[in-house]
């Protein structure tokens, strides 16, 4: 029953996403692309933090790794798919390595280790001019071609991004619906107990980081041809922080949380037509209030509201 309702909901949203940019300017299509791109990265972070319970403040650096890899490969006239694959695999491996600290420390200690990693990435991107273009960054990345079709138009690139995002969502859905999803949650809820039931905690923790980071890399592979200009500043700690807020605002461990959270961060200010600075302040206040009242995020809040009349009904029966 609930599964059906969700399927209908998803179908409606996908249909809406297909027609959304039609008749709108390039800017709207661009905006929707950045939203989908961030949603992919936030989905990955949600796997690491929301499902497996391991905080990471390094997600922006993985977008960076994916974006630089894609840029370097496509600027050398190799196809986008190759660049994307290099970026995703690189992120998977680096994410695996970043998972090792998570085997030793938790909570804010892990937050600061990953934050330090992001800062180190920033320094490397800024200083290694020969590879990354340093502070000047890289620009002029071509948009991918799919067979005879070029995605250089904003609308075409939007549909390309939408397809990649949907594919990424489906794969993640399959992962969290498989026994792995239950294992990730068990890892989050009680690691010692999970291990006593046969879970290889070490391997799964590393995988949680590796897969989450690979999603960051995929987002980067979209960002490079979308913005067609990248510099170290796009991937600093502030970006990681804002991705973390997206995941939390949407709802930790909720599958659609990151999609909603990134929409609140990217699309809502446009819809409300407020200036970015005021919006950020309001957003920050809203996050603080949300955390004190409902740490489950917006989806948690919706669930709570939905459950309230049911409980009242239940009370009337008993």
């Amino acid at each position, binding site marked *: 029953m609930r599964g059906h309702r969700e399927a209908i909901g998803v179908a409606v949203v996908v249909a809406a996403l297909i027609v959304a940019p039609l008749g709108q300017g390039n800017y709207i299509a661009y905006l929707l692309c950045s939203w989908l791109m961030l949603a992919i990265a936030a989905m990955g972070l949600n796997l690491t933090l929301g499902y497996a319970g391991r*905080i990471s403040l390094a997600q922006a650096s993985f977008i960076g790794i994916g974006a630089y890899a894609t840029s370097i490969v496509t600027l050398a006239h190799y196809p986008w798919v190759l660049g994307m694959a290099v970026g995703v695999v690189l992120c998977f491996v680096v994410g695996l390595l970043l998972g090792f600290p998570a085997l030793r420390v938790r*909570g*804010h*200690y892990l*937050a600061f280790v990953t*934050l*330090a990693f992001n*800062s180190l990435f920033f320094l490397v991107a800024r200083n290694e001019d020969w590879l990354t273009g340093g502070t000047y960054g890289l620009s002029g990345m071509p948009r991918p071609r799919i067979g005879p079709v070029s995605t250089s138009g904003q609308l075409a690139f939007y549909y390309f991004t939408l397809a990649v995002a949907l594919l990424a969502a489906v794969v993640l859905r399959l992962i969290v619906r498989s026994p792995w999803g239950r294992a990730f949650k068990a890892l989050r809820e009680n690691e010692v107990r999970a291990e006593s039931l046969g879970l290889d905690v070490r391997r799964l923790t590393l995988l949680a980081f590796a897969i989450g980071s690979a999603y960051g890399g995929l987002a980067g592979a979209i960002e490079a041809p979308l913005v067609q200009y990248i510099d170290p500043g796009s991937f600093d700690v502030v970006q990681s922080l804002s991705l973390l*807020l997206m995941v939390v605002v949407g709802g930790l461990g909720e599958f659609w949380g990151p999609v909603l959270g990134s929409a609140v961060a990217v699309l809502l200010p446009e819809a409300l037509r407020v200036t970015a600075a005021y919006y950020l302040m309001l957003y*920050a206040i809203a996050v603080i209030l949300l955390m004190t009242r409902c740490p489950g995020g917006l989806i948690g809040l919706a669930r709570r509201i939905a459950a309230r009349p049911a409980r009242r009904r239940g009370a009337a029966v008993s």
Partner: protein
Amino acid sequence: MAQFLQVLLSGLATGSIYALAAVGFSLVWQAAQAVNFAQGEFVMLPAFLVLIGEHWLHWPLWAALLFGFALSILLLGLAFKRLIVQPFGPDGGLPLVIATMALSILLKEAVKTFYGAEAEPFPSLLPNGTFHVGGAVVSVRDVLNLLAALAVVLLLTLFLDRTKTGRQMQAAAQNPGVAEILGVDVARMTLYAFLLNAALAAVASFLITPVYLAKFSNGESLGIVAFIAAIIGGFNRIRGALVGGLLIGVLDNLTATYVTLSYRAALPLVLLIAVILWRPQGLLGDEEARIV
């Protein structure tokens, strides 16, 4: 040798200011198990409060300083505790961490929007100028900064160890349950820790801003350096945080001068990762002090 002495001294001067922020960080952690991700912004803000007194209200510098100090304690001490930390109860966990992250965004954006995004000069409270020691050119301000910061930490340590209130604060932080039974007003002692943190942040702000100019984004690097200093020192030790701060200030300057300028910021980060992974109790902490 002369250059080394110069580098060492200016490192100690910056490091002592990091230490102030780190000590405050540790105090709040001890008292309320709250990791404040906005600590950097706590050091950024007081300078702007002074600038508001000076430029908007046209007050003399001393009045603006008093105003900035008092308002800092009110906002970053009292309001921070009552409005942000307290609603989360005794164990805030991740939601509290997220809330302090949001607070850091709020403070930064508020300063940027309402005061300005440009770096502003900040009046120096200490005399400029230099003097020579054995061929080394030593800045008077560096020496005075260092002495001022050390004096503040010394006073704080004396207060915590020698006064009744100070000892009650320590008891309340170490074991609130037992302290409560012994008649300590734990809630009040926790509040003191927040107020002291705000005061330390304000002092750090007034000392460091003349050197780096006042800018809304100043807190970004300061916050992480303060945490690194606190971690290296053992997280819940005042003296540890002091040593951690000084160590980072000196290492940072030494790296910049003798090893690499472009990667100077990397050293404290690598140090942080190494310390957390191999000695989470800190370089100076002992096994019992570990609170992971």
